[in-house]
């Protein structure tokens, strides 16, 4: 099937399918510039673009602009990504390279936590954070990322580390490196591509993690972009053009990161070898 005809039909299919997938997003761009009356129309572009949708949407809450909400979200992300990447690397090295008692046991516990519905732990966690006086702060959102960054990421990194030849460790050991030295000088630099994958996913998933944000943040001045958008939706008279404009802006950070790091998404997972 590697004939020209086969390639052409592949291209046709993929192009058509890409368009189908992206169509709602393309429509979204036009809709963010439409008047309310024009929103339902299947036209892609408005007769007169309402650029003020962006201006009014940006200032909609009166007290704060979206710049404030973006700032809050990025601050939270800074903590999440730092915590996730650093601790996931440490834990993955422990599981992937070091032999210690009950390693197999703890590793299967780790894998089992991937299958645990978050709803089971959320009520006691909320009670705990409430008792510590951390509700309505970023601590409950950020702190969990400092405990290994999540089972899925640890698993990915362990698989990645197992693919690194052990000869490198042995050579370093002969040169007098300790387990800590091997981690710092051999493993950590070599797993950087996989860590980029972890960083990107952490960023995007915590940006989208509406459940945790809605649960723990209640003062408007601490709101993330997602919560600000929700204020929009809960208004009696939704200004759809403005809402769609701000929603579109809210996905920009993830979109930009994704476009720049696109190849890591597939390669990062592919090289880790997600085999049974």
């Amino acid at each position, binding site marked *: 099937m590697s004939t020209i005809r086969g390639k052409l039909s*592949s291209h046709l299919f993929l192009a058509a399918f890409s368009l189908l997938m992206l169509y709602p997003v393309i429509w979204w761009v036009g809709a963010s510039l439409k008047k309310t009356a024009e929103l339902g*129309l299947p036209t892609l572009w408005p007769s007169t673009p309402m650029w003020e949708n962006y201006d009014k949407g940006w200032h909609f809450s009166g007290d704060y602009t979206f710049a404030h909400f973006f700032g809050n979200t990025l601050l939270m992300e800074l903590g999440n990504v730092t915590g996730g990447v650093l601790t996931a690397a440490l834990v993955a090295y422990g599981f992937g390279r070091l032999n210690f008692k009950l390693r197999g046991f703890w590793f299967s516990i780790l894998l089992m936590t991937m299958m645990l519905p978050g709803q089971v732990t959320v009520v006691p966690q909320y009670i705990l954070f409430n008792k510590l006086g951390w509700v309505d702060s970023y601590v409950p959102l950020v702190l969990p990322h400092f405990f290994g960054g999540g089972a899925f990421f640890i698993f990915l990194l362990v698989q990645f580390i197992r693919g690194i030849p052990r000869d490198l460790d042995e050579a370093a050991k002969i040169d007098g490196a300790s387990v800590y030295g091997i981690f710092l000088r051999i493993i950590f630099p070599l797993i950087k591509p996989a860590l980029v994958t972890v960083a990107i996913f952490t960023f995007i998933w915590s940006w989208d993690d509406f459940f945790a944000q809605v649960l723990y943040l209640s003062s408007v001045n601490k709101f993330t972009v*997602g919560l600000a958008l929700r204020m929009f939706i809960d208004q009696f008279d939704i200004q759809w053009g403005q809402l769609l404009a701000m929603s579109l802006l*809210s996905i920009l950070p993830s979109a930009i990161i994704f476009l720049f790091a696109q190849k890591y998404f597939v390669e990062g997972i*592919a090289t880790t070898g997600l*085999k*049974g």
Partner: protein
Amino acid sequence: MEAPLRKRKSKGETNAAGYLFIAPWLIGFLLLTLWPIAQSFYLSFTEYSLLEAPVWTGTDNYVNIFTNDSTFTKSLGVTFSFVLVSVPLKLFFSLMVAIALSRSIRGMNFYRTAIYFPSLIGGSIAVAALWRNMFGLDGYINQVLAWFGIQGVGWITNPDTSLGTLILLNTWQFGSTMVIFLAGLKQIPQELYESASVDGAGRIRKFFRITLPMLSPVMFFNLVLGIIGSFQTFTSALIITKGGPINSTYMYALFLYEKAFKHYQMGYASALAWILLVIVAVLTALNFLASRYWVFYESDGGKAK
């Protein structure tokens, strides 16, 4: 004489080092997973509103849930319908697309980006807002249908179509599942296909005899995580439909959330969480049992025939 001693010492050292490295996860697991699970189990036998100490009520919560709570039955039914339709649909779509995207042709990066994009913005509230507008009574979808002379309905305000609309949104975001399939496809040795070609096997035969068996561990992984993920669908139900109309999209996760954080019935919500845990555990166990019959592992010494 010295060697065994040194060996023992270094063993003790790696034990300590091992635990030092996994300490972040281990501490987090004990504090934020194990302890909350135990706590949640205890609370499920109490009445607790956060303001006063929990009051032990025995199995009252469970009895009430199973005998008096029609919302429980309803939301469980809604969630099961959602899982039953959306998980297979998503698996099928993402596998087909992954196969299409696994070929090496020029411009593949562009296609992959385009097709992954909707999943990237996945669970976000932005996309829920978009969906709510597009599927509104005089939203975009109905206008397009009107072109073809079809009278649209209020997709999210009609109880017959509201759940379907959420399933459609969920399926549109098949990207993560697809990426994992794509990674799995890349691991299949090309020699298998080549030798099958020599034996005169066609594309369909190769798909059923090589691709599917070799991909079965990845399929299993996606199936298990897909079921667990679908049981927890929350944002779209909260933002797009608010569980309505007449509870037709009142997903279990939304029900639990409202019991806990809107009505502050922490004990009742904990019981709901434990029921969810048991359901997911049983389904996962059944999956693992069934997997013996259809999941193929290379390391078992099996043959990809």
